[in-house]
């Protein structure tokens, strides 16, 4: 009896999981599918599933019009640079907040988060002026710094939460054995916090990769990442759905591929974490 109930439960859970997976994937699938249609087929009524002439024409047109690799490279540098820089700055801070807490720790965390609450539009003008002043407009360095500053509070907060789960006794033991602060962070804390650091890294890389306000407003031709690549297709020619879909697919593809590999990394981190 108990066994039958468990089997039923399993079937229901699996069905729900597949439905959710399908719902999550479908809009993306539809976009990818549309990118292989001609413009006429893309707006066909009723919508076409697989019964159309597959074509790569849209990709050829998009590639011809804008240099995809340059946008891709900018995205990688900006998202990667800001995330790594942010993590390096945040690890020591999160360490001291988690293991040497003071009465002010909680307030500081909230205050840091509060800096993210000023609406971006409201500060666009002052930030642009600063960028002009320091010649940072349309440079990758400028965007790395801005996105790092935007995500820093989240990085610190996430790392702090994960670090706090690590038993402090292990650090005390390391200290008893004569570990310096550097050893403690480098050889004890970091390996133990790999799952937390990995998921922080992944999430913030994605956040930086997809950020579509600052990347659009502070770049022109040189430092424009993939978000700008898509925007150039969505605004002036909103009615060319097949080309827009092709550009979207090209913009999503690299992060989907990277996501696949880093997910494995992440899963490994999550499963073999020393936190257990």
């Amino acid at each position: 009896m108990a066994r039958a109930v468990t089997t039923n439960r399993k079937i229901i859970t699996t069905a729900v999981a597949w439905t959710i997976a399908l719902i999550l994937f479908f809009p993306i699938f539809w976009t990818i599918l549309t990118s292989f249609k001609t413009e006429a087929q893309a707006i066909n009524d009723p919508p076409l599933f697989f019964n159309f002439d597959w074509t790569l024409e849209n990709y050829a047109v998009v590639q011809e019009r804008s240099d995809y690799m340059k946008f891709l490279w900018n995205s990688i540098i900006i998202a990667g640079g800001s995330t790594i820089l942010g993590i390096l700055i945040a690890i020591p801070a999160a360490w001291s907040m988690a293991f040497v807490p003071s009465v002010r720790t909680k307030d500081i965390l909230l205050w840091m988060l509060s800096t993210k609450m000023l609406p971006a539009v409201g500060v666009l003008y002052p930030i642009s002026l600063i960028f002009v002043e320091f010649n940072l407009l349309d440079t990758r360095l400028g965007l790395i710094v801005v996105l790092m500053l935007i995500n820093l509070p989240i990085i610190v907060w996430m790392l702090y939460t994960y670090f706090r789960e690590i038993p402090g006794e292990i650090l005390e033991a390391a200290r008893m054995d004569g570990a310096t602060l550097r050893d403690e962070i480098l050889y004890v804390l970091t390996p133990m916090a790999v799952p937390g650091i990995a998921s922080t890294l992944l999430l913030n890389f994605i956040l930086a990769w997809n950020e579509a306000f600052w990347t659009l407003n502070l770049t022109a031709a040189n430092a424009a990442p993939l978000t700008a690549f898509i925007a150039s297709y969505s605004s002036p020619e909103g009615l060319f759905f097949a080309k827009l879909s092709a550009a979207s697919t090209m913009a999503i593809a690299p992060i989907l591929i990277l996501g696949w590999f880093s997910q494995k990394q992440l899963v490994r981190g999550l499963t073999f974490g020393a936190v257990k």
Partner: protein
Amino acid sequence: MEKTVNQKAWFLVLPVLVLVAFSAVIPLMTVVNYSVQDTFGNNQFFWAGLEWFKEMLRDDRMWDALGRQLMFSGIILLIQIPLGVFIALNMPKSGFWVSFCLVVMSLPLLIPWNVVGTIWQIFGRVDIGLLGHTLAAIGVDYNYTSDPFAAWVTIIVMDVWHWTSLVALLAYAGLKSIPDAYYQAAKIDQASRWAVFRYIELPKMMGVLMIAILLRFMDSFMIYTEPFVVTGGGPGSTTTMLSIDLVKMALGQFDLGPAAAFSIMYFLTILLISWVFYTVMTNLEKREG
């Protein structure tokens, strides 16, 4: 001994504090500066005192937008947080399916935000979109460009689609950090599934859930790109959120003074609500131990 450790610790926090302060104070100062001045162009500014703030507070348009914004964020939190936790609880904890689940889950998160709007705009169109078309075929009167209710449903479904995974991933990471011993102890005590959730999983997830709630609240309260792409704030002004209003003011009309005053009040509202969330959650966490 204790003392040296503490001093070193503060030394480590300092770089972050300086950076955050730098990134917070300079824009804020500029915005405050604009909010109390008026200009006729040519970079000549006049003292306007609290005039812009008074004008904004008298403006019905802003109050309406605030109401819509609060409703939007409220619905988003009520759907996404329980749904995300539910998904995380039902995810497999080991084996091949873990990576499959995580990859599928993170799919929507990987899409740039301006593309999310575009995808749903196409997907929901009655003439060419699969969703709109299917709904029309089964007899549902759905048209997000003319029906406010349909427009609301569209942007909420879109946001749930886009962000629930983040909540689920955070909750999942929180769950993974629970030592097996806890579950074994619960098993020995013959604790029910609900009791395990209520007394082991939920308290252990509190920390990450707080991040999830605050992040989702702030992002949904400042949402701009997605509804703007899909509905443009319409039909009428039924989906005009605060940020869409602000952009119209700051970039459309170049009213820097009112826009700055608006930004500050916007900021204070978010700060106040986040502070309430934070205080309540921290107290809960303390009580749970």
